[in-house]
């Protein structure tokens, strides 16, 4: 299977006055299309930084990222934004819905940014798919945490994306709701043959992915592969 994401000697440093702090240190790997990969590690290990670099939200100090066959380093911010629009979906820990827009409008947003004609219909259908057909005109503040994350998932799949990046998607949810959300996300991921890159510190959640990249102090410590395990089976 061809690689949809390739990280080549990715290094990220930040300067703190006269010192330089290395956040990621020569991280290399490749992810095939349709794979589900969890990035795991302790706090400060560089998980979120890696996710940002892979999705083109940030640029590495050294090294190279290829996403959907494109070299992110050769593109400017607007170019990377267009690539995200075409090929990437996101699910965040804090949902990141726009408070001024209704659920429907939030899901329409990536479609509209991409100039899709039937944005409203597509968005409504996706919200129906995540069980929010009756909540189209509700604002984020009128929705529960679980419902907001469902809207965020619908928005993430609106593209439709080749790669779905999820950053601690259950971090702000209770266990039961988190479980439902993860089921939904994996279900959609499977249906749509999307590549999933999931950042989590939750070992149980990470085991639902076929592959785990384990980071420690900015280095890739392990690249583990194993059959995915359903969350319900390991939940306490």
């Amino acid at each position, binding site marked *: 299977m061809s690689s949809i994401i390739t990280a080549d000697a990715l290094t990220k440093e930040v300067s703190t006055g006269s010192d330089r702090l290395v956040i990621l240190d020569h991280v290399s790997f490749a992810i095939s299309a349709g794979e589900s990969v969890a990035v795991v590690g302790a706090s400060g290990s560089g998980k979120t930084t890696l996710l940002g670099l892979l999705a083109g939200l940030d640029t590495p100090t050294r090294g190279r990222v290829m996403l959907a066959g494109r070299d992110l380093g050769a593109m400017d911010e607007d170019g990377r*934004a267009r690539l*995200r*629009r075409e090929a*990437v979906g996101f699910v*965040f820990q*804090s949902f990141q819905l726009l408070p001024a827009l209704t659920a429907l409008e939030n899901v329409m947003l990536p479609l509209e940014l991409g100039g899709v004609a039937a944005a409203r219909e597509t968005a409504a259908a996706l919200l129906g798919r995540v069980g929010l057909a009756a909540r189209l005109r509700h604002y984020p503040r009128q929705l529960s945490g679980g419902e907001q994350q469902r809207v965020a998932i619908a928005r993430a799949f609106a593209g439709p994306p080749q790669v779905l990046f999820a950053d601690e998607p259950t971090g702000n949810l209770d266990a039961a709701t988190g479980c439902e959300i993860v089921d939904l996300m994996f279900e959609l991921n499977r249906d749509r043959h999307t590549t999933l890159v999931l950042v989590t510190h939750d070992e149980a959640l990470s085991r639902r992915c076929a592959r785990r990249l384990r980071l420690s102090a900015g280095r890739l410590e392990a690249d583990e592969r194993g059959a995915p395990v359903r969350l319900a089976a390991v939940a306490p």
Partner: protein
Amino acid sequence: MGAGLGPAGVLRLALRLLGRDFRAGELRLMALSLVLAVASFTTVAFFADRVRQALSREASQLLGADLVVVSDRPIEALLAEEASRLGLSRTATTRFPSMISGAQESLLTEIKAVGEGYPLRGRLRIAGPDGVPRPMVGAPAPGEAWVDERAFTRLGLRFGGPVNVGDRALKVAARVVDDPDTSIGFLNVMPRLMLNAADLPATGLIQTGSRVIYRLMVSGSREAVDAFRAFAAPRAGPGQRVEDVRDARPEIRSALERAERFLGLASLLSVILAAVAVALAARRYLQRHLDACAVMRCLGASRAQTVWIHALQLAVLGLAAGLAGCGAGFAAQWGLSALLAPVVQVSLPPPSVAPALQGIAAGFVLLLGFALPPLAALGRVPTLRVLRRDLGPPRGTAWLGHAAGLAAVVALILWHTRDLKLAAWVLGGLAMAAVVSAAVALGLVRAAASVGREAGFAWRFGLANLSRRALGSVVQVVALGAGLLALILMSITRADLLDSWQRSLPPEAPNRFLVNIQPDQRQALAEFFAAEGRPAPQLFPMVRGRLAAINDQPVNASSFGDERARRLVDREFNLSWAQRPQLDNVIVAGQWWSRQPPAPLQFSVEQGIADTLGLKLGDRLRYDVAGTPLEGAITSLRKVQWDSFRVNFFVVAPPGTLDDYPVSWVTSFHLPAGEAALMDRLVKRFPNLLVVDVAAVLAQVQTMMDQVIRAVEYVFLFSVAAGLLVLFAAIQSTHDERVREAAILRTLGGDSRQLRQAQAAEFVAVGALSGLLAAVGATALGWVLAERVLNVPYTLDPWVWAVGLVAGGAGVLAAGLLGTRQVVRASPMETLRRA
């Protein structure tokens, strides 16, 4: 903190923190708002201070003497004799309006006949053919005249050439450069000519009905002047007053006070808008400093220290911004002075330091009212916030901030108006305008958002943001709308109203008044018009009398509180007689007299003057006509259409009742354009007649008004700037939110162009809604002024709407994009970092 931070330590820490906050840009907007408020305040204050100084510095110069007796009839010889007896120097002037003519044209001019020794104080300067001004004491030689620049140019006079004044031809001997009496004045429109008092009788200009001002001027030792004042003041009858340097030119002082009050209120709008910006900036400062304060408290700073640190920061900021504002105001007042120079007509001394101190004080009032209450809340931040970020300052104290802000606004309005009643009106008006415009703005914001739902991404996103931050949006729309409204009213609406009014006048409306026609000239005048092939205009009789008593109660100026009533009673009324009311008069109360009016004498009084003087049907009025009493009762009240420009009178009596009194005649007629030469022939034939060119007078008043309005517009520019500051403050207060949203949009694939479009949609909407609000306000006020004040039909001007929408939209778009240029550059990593 060891033994604790002493006062000096608190001050040092406050200064260090202030420097850091300022460098970080946290306080720039608050400082800028204060600078603008103080600049707007001091621009007007510096200018008024300069005029006031000029008035007091040149008081005796303005008076031309130490003390002057002003009278509308010849001054009794008794006073001149007393002045001589006290050893005072004295001279006299006689002033009145009249026509003068050169070789071709004639011109309405103020004539001043002066005696020897003029002026007793101040500087009279004249220039001869060499153009070099030289000081002068005394009158022109008999047979000679000195004319001012305006008369010189308009009549095309030349040195040594003739100028006709009444029946006398005088030789133009000099041009007047400075004359104490005329060196300053608001609305000082007439050209002037000086002649020797000895030439006055030969001109034949002082006749029945002439409006003449006599002045007896004295100077000398303070004791003698005081003694003369004590002698003259009690003897001053109606139409006479005694002026000294303390009350010189009361009309200028009152005009200055009105101008200062009006310009001050105009500047107050920008001060209040700037206060809103200060409040918004202070709120953001509070939100940004909650964590820092919690940490400081956690590290051992007491509540008092926390409050003191912020209060000291504010004090230093207030002082620095106040000084900068004074500097800006000082620079801006030169512009204001230049705009008003033709109206003020005086060389202004440099301003004193008092307005600067007042400006700084006003800045502190704003800070106390609008910034201190939110910042004082920092002292109440719970220390536990270091663990739980959702904990803010205790709620329920917001009213304190609102009350302090309101108190600051009230204090500033009171300070400006120095009048409790006016302050109450201004405050009430402002409050009502704020409530109404906020309601309209809220409606517009909601409507725009609902329309935007159906639009594309950029519009929907921008308008949705507008609606979500409804309160902030309303504040921005109202603040910007107020600034725009002021400018639209001053420019477009004013021009429209003037245009409507001028168009409402019939094209054949009289445009020339002939005043001072003597009874024996009536026939000759009719023949003159006949010879010119024109119909003779209808003449109206005019008898001048002073109102002496109402219902047997003697009245004078001091009997009335109203300024207009005082002026009316102080002057002589023009009484007339008529068999029937004029066509443009409507009887609104009582009845017009029958053909054979029974005794006693009846008066028909114009309704407006009756209201001013508190007169009603049945009241008995006694007039003093050249020393003879004339008494009658009011039997009807009339409404007069004054802008018909036909001759009309405040008080009319039945025919035959005024036959025994000295009478002159007056008329008005329409002189077609291009026939001005007829007037020159008329003045040559009847030199004593006064020709008032209505169009010329209106044009002069219009020019003067334009100059004043440009000055007001200048002051209102501060309001627009303050409106923009409110916009910036509102943008800044939502900066973090905007950055977060921009980061989300970027993460979802939005590029810079799409981000800018969404921002642009929001700002265009804010600007267009402000413009719309301003246009609605200008249209409503224009309608009220047209229909209720000017009585002309109001025509909707599409320019008001076009300019409002386009100027508002484009202006706010530019300012908004400038204010959010950082937001577009937001890194999409923010979406991950701020999880």
